[in-house]
Structure formats: C-alpha cells, structure tokens
C-alpha cells in the first residue's frame, strides 16, 4: 500500500506490505487454505480465490519483508540516489480478498526444459477486492473493482519438477 497516486508502487512511498512470510522451507508467500477457497474452470478461462480473515503480517514495505525487518541502506550510487529504509518489525493483520480471473487476452502452451515446467497458460483479465485490518488501521479497496487496474494476470494448468517429464 502506497501514499502515491493510484498506479504507483514505489517502495519509498510504501506504508503497508501484507504477506504470509517465506516459510521454513523457503517457499515464497504461500499459505494453505481451504480447498473450496479456490474454484477453477480452466476450460471456461475462469478462476476465483476467496479468503476471509486470513492471518497475515504487515511488514510495512517490501524491503522489510524481503530482509525480514532489516530495512535497506541508502544507495548513493542509484540514479537518483535512494534513501535508507529503516528496519521494521512485522505487525499481525487480518486480510480478506476476492480475486477473479475471467476473460482470455492471450494463450500459450509452454514447455520450458530449463525451468522444468510445462502446461497451458492464459493471460486473463482479473479483478481484486480486498481489505485489511490491524491494530489502529483498516483498509478497503475500491468497490466495484476496476477492471483496468489489471496489469497482467495468468491462469495456468501446469506440471513442474518431478511431474515435468
């Protein structure tokens, strides 16, 4: 979440970063949810993810999320130079979200031997409605969600790793 205008996403203007943290096995931001939280109609090019009151963390910003609360030093070599981001400890939060993938924009069948994944993938339109609540603060995204807010979204049926061959 950013204090800049809608469409902006500068880490230096970020004031909230909700995620479920990297797990002990280094899986990035994934959390088990109920099976019925996800409904997929791949042949109909649609899917929906709905979760209410998921326990998550607010790391304040992406830098603190990825450095586990260390923040970042200033980078005087950047153009323009960037300021330091102070370290922050995560805060407990609850998030709810309703994400819909619907409407094909492009499609591709992919077999990537280097990354060992293959499958059918759709670039789709997508919308999200979401909210967050924590001590002293709550947020609600615009309703109805703006279809033009989607930059890129993907729906896929894939196999990777040992299921690649």
């Amino acid at each position: 979440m950013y204090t800049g205008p809608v469409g902006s996403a500068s880490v230096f203007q970020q004031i909230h970063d909700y995620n479920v943290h990297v797990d002990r096995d280094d899986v990035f931001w994934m959390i088990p949810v109920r099976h019925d939280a996800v409904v997929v109609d791949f042949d109909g090019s649609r899917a929906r993810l709905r979760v209410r009151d998921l326990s998550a963390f607010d790391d304040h910003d992406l830098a603190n999320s990825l450095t586990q609360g260390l923040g970042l030093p200033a980078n005087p070599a950047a153009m323009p130079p960037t300021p330091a981001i102070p370290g922050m400890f995560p805060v407990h939060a609850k998030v709810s979200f309703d994400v819909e993938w619907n409407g094909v924009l492009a499609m591709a069948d992919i077999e990537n031997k280097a990354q060992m994944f293959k499958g059918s993938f759709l670039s789709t339109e997508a919308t999200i409605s979401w909210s967050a609540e924590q001590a002293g603060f709550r947020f609600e995204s615009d309703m109805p969600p703006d279809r033009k807010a989607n930059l890129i979204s993907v729906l896929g049926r894939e196999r990777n790793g040992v299921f690649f061959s």
Partner: protein
Amino acid sequence: MNEPGYSPWKKLQEHWLSRRNLIRGAAGTALGAGLLRPKLAYADDEDGDSERAACVGPNPIPGGVMGLAPFGIFIHHNPLNPAKAMADINDPSQITDFDGFVGLTHIRGGGMGTDAATGAMTRLAFQADMGFSQGKFIGTDGQQHRGTFAFV
C-alpha cells in the same frame, strides 16, 4: 577504515543471513512458531490422512529472481512482467514437484485507509501480486499430497 570492496549491500546480506538465522532460531524457541509464520493447515495427503499432512508443506521452485536490486535478496518466485509475451513467461508457480492449476495477478488499484483511532480516511494506492496453486505436489516429507495454497 573502510575495507576495500566491502559494499553496504554485502554488509546487508551478511547481516540479513545472521538475522534470518536468529529469527528462525527464536521462532522455534522463545517466540514460538506463530509469531513469524501462520500455521500450516488444510493440506491433505493422497490417502486422506489430513492430520499427518497438516504439517507437511511443499518445496519451493529452484528458480526465481533477485529482489531489491542491487541488494540481491533471492526469492523463489517469478514476478509477472507485462512486457513479456505469454509464450516467454517464467514458471508462475512458487512450488515445485507440482501438478495442477496456478493463478497469478499483478494489479494496481486504489482504496481507502482508515485510522481506527481518529476515523480519518486517506486515499491509498495498492499493488496486489497474489494468486493460488491447487493440485498435487510432493511435500517436504517426499510423499504425494493434494493441497490448495493462496499466494499472499
């Protein structure tokens, strides 16, 4: 005296690694597992033994990207890039040894933040990189499971 070639980001990486080990150690002892990581649940293994599978998670994809360039924090995730053709995307899954459906989004929108104490409301921007994986996977126990995961 400054050590030649000892950049701030090198120092950050070393600090990050020691902090990460410290946090992991602390999370396993005094702080408990609940502080830094929500509880694993809802993954069923192939024979329906959900009690055993409740503690079993997937493994990460081997690939990913360096986040926060030039600081170089590796993450097992391939962010979507609107400039890339669909046929050239990297693996959108965060978990490996996986067979199923994946969804990923990269959405920027707006909403209202409310200060719960004062009621003051502020217009805020957001970026949502979210998704899901649903299907079968080989867990960290080497066994096959079925599960549904949200990418948050």
